[in-house]
């Protein structure tokens, strides 16, 4: 996946906040090549279709369907375009939904410039990028109930469970460890850490385990019962 390692990744920014787009552009403009910006689902799909960038930096929450809609529409014609989800407001079920739609990672908008550039590069190289928060969500989602009691397992039951190694890696990510630190902590190579993370991503996207959806549904239910739901 090392497509001409020296060229900068071509990036399209999709975010409905103009202020945020210009901020990101100014910050990472040197480490990546920002080829386009879009502020809504429709224009974003059209632009990605035309430019075919390496990475789309995608806001999870947008009017008109959100990041999920963009990914679903683009994936059909351009499976090679990679998505990195970015959000300020991260309700777990929204984040998991975007990842399941096909995003290769998720970072929060509070991420530092260097980390963001690094994350984009990683996604461009085909790796997965898990922020500490996403790692927490994933652990939570896969732990939602013992999978032995799962009534309808996936076609491939392997997909329904994390291995203990994957769990360990996720735990360390959730604690703010970098891949390098994780490798040292677990006495494995950085490449192995990366492959664990990619495998978690694959499970997250392919598992049809209804627990994942049930988990999301329960959380949403919790929200609406507890009080005013700000996102509607």
């Amino acid at each position, binding site marked *: 996946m090392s497509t001409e390692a020296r060229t900068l990744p071509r990036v399209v920014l999709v975010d409905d906040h103009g202020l945020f787009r210009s901020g990101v552009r100014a910050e990472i403009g040197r480490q990546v090549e920002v080829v386009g910006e879009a502020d809504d689902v429709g224009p974003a799909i059209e632009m990605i279709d035309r430019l075919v960038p390496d990475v789309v930096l995608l806001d999870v929450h947008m009017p008109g369907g959100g990041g999920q809609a963009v990914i679903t529409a683009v994936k059909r014609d351009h499976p090679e375009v990679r998505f990195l989800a970015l959000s*300020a*407001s*991260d*309700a*777990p079920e929204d984040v998991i939904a975007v990842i399941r739609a096909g995003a290769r990672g998720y970072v929060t908008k*509070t991420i530092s410039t260097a980390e963001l550039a690094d994350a984009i590069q990683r996604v461009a190289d085909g790796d997965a990028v898990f922020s*500490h*928060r996403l*790692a*927490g969500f994933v*652990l*939570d989602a896969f*732990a*939602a*109930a*013992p999978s032995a009691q799962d009534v309808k397992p996936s076609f491939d039951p392997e997909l329904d469970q994390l291995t203990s190694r994957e769990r360990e890696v996720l*735990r360390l990510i*959730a*604690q*703010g*460890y970098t891949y390098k630190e994780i490798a040292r902590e677990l006495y494995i190579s950085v490449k192995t850490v990366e492959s664990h993370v990619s495998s978690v991503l694959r499970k997250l996207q392919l598992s049809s385990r209804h627990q994942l959806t049930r*988990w999301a549904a*329960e*959380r949403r239910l*919790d*929200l609406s*019962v*507890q*009080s*005013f*739901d*700000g*996102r509607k």
Partner: protein
Amino acid sequence: MRIVFVVITLVSQGWTIPFYLGGWLLIPARGTEASIWSRARHDSRGIALAVGLASLLCVLLGLASVLNPGLVNTYGWQQVVSVAFLVLIWRNAPDSEQAAMRHLVEPLESLGGGGEHSMRRGLGIRLVAAVALLAAGFGWLLTSHENVALLRPLAGLILVTAGIVLLLGPWWLRIARDLVLERQARARAEERADLSSRIHDSVLQTLALIQRRADDPQQVVQLARAQERELRSWLFEGRTLGDGDATTVSEGVRQIQRDVEARHGVPVEVVTVGDCPLDDDLNALLAAAREATVNAAKWSGAGVISVYAEVEPEQVQVAVRDRGKGFDPDAVPGDRKGLAESVHGRMSRHGGRVTVHSAVGEGTKVTLTMPRSAAAAEAKGGNRR
């Protein structure tokens, strides 16, 4: 309340209505000083009208009592007073009450005429049908009054009811619908007011503060983070960020985050997996975690502290980690040792474990593990959200 009123009305043979109206007339409404009566006294035309209508009603009732003395005598005569009172109220009530009453009566007025053609035709048909039903029903009732047969008056009663429903049904429906709509509108307005007051209290205040502290980057970051956390917990966890005591592990950890960030100005990244209610052991765990976090904020010099809490079926684990100075566990300076012991002491008293990993220049990680008490684990077995 209303049902009680209706029942009392029936029991007291209709005397409640005039008494109620009298009360309306004589007792000043909340917030106003003059009762309606104080104005009605000067309304000579109103009084004349009331007396006139009352006497007209007397004549009507007199005629009716020839046909059916029982009913009129028990329920009818009292209403003469009611009508008189109602006229006075109608003419002299404050504007707001008048508007409300007019709104109620509006559909009745439209019975008389006006409105669009098709509507009028519908109304006409309704009116004719209602009158026919009423006439038939009343006729039946009156003719069968002396009769012993029970079924026939019943049929008459049904006809009368049907007539009344046909005549007044749409009006009742409209009143009911208006009530529902009004309640919804009020709920929406309250929600909006709640929302704007929250935004004012939190976001706007913080933005103002940020503008004033623009020359102090650290303060600005801290303010922004605190605000972000507050909004997030309100939006996604549906929790008002009060100072109320935490009741679950994740709430407890967030409280630690808030307090440490506020008091020591060091950002704390929190990730929690699973959740469960707090008990004595877990409170001790959180207290130890607080010590460890405060410790890291005070001594490590790290730019950020990460706190990770995971609730498992058999145990709860909290890891506090920083990338700060670190220390050599074998050569701990006195002050640090004391703090470490308070962490250790707390944990071991409740059957928990502590492991500390640290190396000079590489930061520190304190891992606290507390087994869940058998009963709690049983009751909440694997209770993760």
